[in-house]
């Protein structure tokens, strides 16, 4: 900007200046911050919806959420958490960290980066505005199966469809940017097999996004034309098939599950070596395991549909393919444990969250294996056991890893150390509350409690009361997290450049807080010590 020129028009109002700065920024750090703020906001919005659900399920009977409201809350909680909280959080971390980790000055396509972000707030305004419309918000569950979402969907379904379109465009553009950045802007000498694992997992996640999100866009487009333009993709009357919807949806949906966990794997692979003060065990096998999981994620969608009348051969194929995913996942868990083996471990908050992630994600992985077994799945299908399973992989998985990342890199972002004592309190209350909330759901599910139903048999009353108390506590602990983050941004002990004693990587060679522009000239891996630390791989 040309400042203080005589010909310049009158100074803009500071508020306008502030808005324009964030609206027009192309800086990867600022865009990363925007993503993280949006994600944090929507995390609380969707969390509040979960509170409505849990409050209603506190006791059997219908207390204060009518079935219509309950269905809308369940649906929007799922949609907003998946597309609004987890995914933007990971994209925000990618924006902040990938250029700093590979020694790039910015993302490869900075203006596209700005566009990818600013689509999102509009997408969620479209989606959430449906709450205030006649006929209510979408009420068909986050999987929006036809014909619930086509023939019987409320009028606001069209807002949902366009919201999903926008989210898809945002994710795909963001992913293209990430891949192009990683492939083109690495510092000289940083070969692909020298990249930090967070960068590797995001490279693979970005490919998953580019291949999965357009299929989702196709599915909602078919819904739109079925609803309004007389097509019959999912309508048996016109020769279509509602089961076909499930195939298209889960062809997107299963890779989506890994989109929400692979960056978490990358985060754990950054944090555990730091606090074990050892190299990551099995770097190469980590990379190949991530790629293997990504490949397998595209051929297992049928395990969501075992009860739709699949032939035996199909059931067997999807069952074995699903179980196969346990192998690369097991490799990863083994590598994390082996990294810690005989390390000089300390347990700062990021490490606690990373360990909680490894422990509890594994529990979710095991219940996933149980669900993969066809005859057992026929019993578990659509019960709270499934709810317990995917919340174990998403809460201690995706969300704990995001929180671990926030604690780990917050000193680098803000220049201040967070309050370690409060951080530890946050971890332990969250860890207890997560288990209190979701572990009893295994039992209520095995006993036969169906998911997505507003009322339930009194036989499940005790389990549900425990779950609801846990959920309330879990909600409160996240307010503590919000307080810790704000406190750290506003001040605190000065953080050193390296921040953590055992931290290695290019992002720790720049000052804390990270200046707006870093690596304007490519760093030398030799002088930064990077080559030496990674040579042993």
């Amino acid at each position, binding site marked *: 900007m040309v400042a203080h020129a005589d010909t310049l028009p009158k100074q803009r109002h500071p508020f306008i200046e502030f808005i324009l700065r964030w609206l027009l920024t192309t800086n990867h750090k600022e865009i990363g911050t925007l993503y993280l703020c949006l994600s944090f906001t929507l995390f609380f919005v969707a969390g509040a919806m979960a509170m409505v659900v849990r409050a209603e399920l506190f006791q059997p009977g219908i207390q204060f959420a009518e079935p219509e409201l309950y269905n809308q809350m369940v649906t929007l909680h799922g949609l907003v958490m998946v597309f609004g909280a987890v995914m933007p959080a990971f994209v925000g971390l990618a924006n902040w960290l990938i250029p700093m980790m590979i020694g*790039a000055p910015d993302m*490869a*396509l900075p203006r596209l980066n700005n566009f990818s972000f600013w689509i999102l707030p509009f997408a969620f305004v479209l989606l959430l505005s449906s709450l205030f419309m006649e006929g209510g918000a979408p009420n068909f569950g986050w999987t929006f199966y036809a014909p619930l979402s*086509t*023939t*019987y*969907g*409320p*009028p606001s*379904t069209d807002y949902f469809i366009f919201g999903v379109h926008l989210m898809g465009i945002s994710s*795909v553009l963001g*992913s*293209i940017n990430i*891949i*192009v950045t990683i*492939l*083109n*802007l*690495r510092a*000289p000498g940083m070969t692909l097999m020298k990249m930090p694992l967070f960068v590797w997992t995001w490279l693979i996640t970005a490919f998953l996004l*580019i*291949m*999965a*999100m*357009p*299929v989702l*866009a*196709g*599915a909602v*487009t*078919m819904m739109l034309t*079925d*609803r*309004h*333009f*007389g097509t019959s*993709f999912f309508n*048996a*009357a016109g*020769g279509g*098939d509602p*089961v*076909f919807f499930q*195939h*298209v949806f889960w*062809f997107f949906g299963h890779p989506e599950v890994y989109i929400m966990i692979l960056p978490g794997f990358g985060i754990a692979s950054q944090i555990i070596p730091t606090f074990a003060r050892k190299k990551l065990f099995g770097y190469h096998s980590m990379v190949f395991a991530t790629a293997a999981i990504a490949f397998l994620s595209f051929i297992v969608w049928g395990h969501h549909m075992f009860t739709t*009348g*699949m*032939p035996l051969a199909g059931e067997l194929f999807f069952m074995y393919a699903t179980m196969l995913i346990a192998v690369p996942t097991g490799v990863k868990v083994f590598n994390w444990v082996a990294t810690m083996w005989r390390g000089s471990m300390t347990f700062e908050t990021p490490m606690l969250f990373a360990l909680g992630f490894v422990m509890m994600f594994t529990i979710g992985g095991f219940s996933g294996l149980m669900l993969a077994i066809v005859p057992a799945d026929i019993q578990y299908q659509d019960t709270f056991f499934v709810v317990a399973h995917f919340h174990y992989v998403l809460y201690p998985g995706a969300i704990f890893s995001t929180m671990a990342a926030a604690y780990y890199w917050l000193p680098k972002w803000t220049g201040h150390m967070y309050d370690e004592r409060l951080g530890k309190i946050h971890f332990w209350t969250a860890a207890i509350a997560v288990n209190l909330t979701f572990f009893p759901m295994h039992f209520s599910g095995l006993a036969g409690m169906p998911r997505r139903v507003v009322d339930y048999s009194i036989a499940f009353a005790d389990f549900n009361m425990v779950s609801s108390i846990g959920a309330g506590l879990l909600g409160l602990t996240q307010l503590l997290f919000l307080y810790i983050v704000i406190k750290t941004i506003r001040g605190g002990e000065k953080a050193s450049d390296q921040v953590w004693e055992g931290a290695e990587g290019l992002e720790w060679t720049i000052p804390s807080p990270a200046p707006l522009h870093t690596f304007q000239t*490519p760093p030398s891996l030799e002088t930064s010590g990077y080559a030496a630390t990674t040579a042993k791989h």
Partner: protein
Amino acid sequence: MTRSTKPSHDSRRKHTAVLVVLAVGMFGFAFALVPLYNVFCELTGLNGKTSSQAVNTERLPQASDREVTIQFLAQVAKGMPWEFRPTETELRVRLGEINTTRFYVRNRVSDAVIGQAVPSVAPGLAAQYLHKIECFCFTQQQLDGGGEMEMPVQFYVGTDLPEEVRTLTLSYTMFRVEPVLPDADHAHL
């Protein structure tokens, strides 16, 4: 792979272009799944969809002694003002033997209505063994206001029907066919 050189800029553009093509291709793939899915279902006989074509009666198999029960169901879709039911709910048939049954329809309203019946067979895997020689579901049916008729289905069950299938259910759903306006709101049908 280093930056700030001219080739790197070209390579960025190339990578972007390739990835955009991949994304657009995957969007197209979602629609390509429609014919793929139908072909797959037709080949494997999954989904309980029977063929919408009449079978050739010239190459009929020898009737066997094995008998199975075939049950008939009829229902109308939402917004269809017809009464629709099978004249007999159950039939004991020999495999390979040609049988005929009838379905009764009556138009409850005073306007002419066009209907299309969509068949479904349970268990789904048995659909490919139910061969229809003649069926009202092959074409659209029209009933004048208050009109009624009996519609025949002529069929035989293939002799290669798997041993474990002893009962087949043939179900029809009658849908109202109307000229679809571009802005018709299906949510309120």
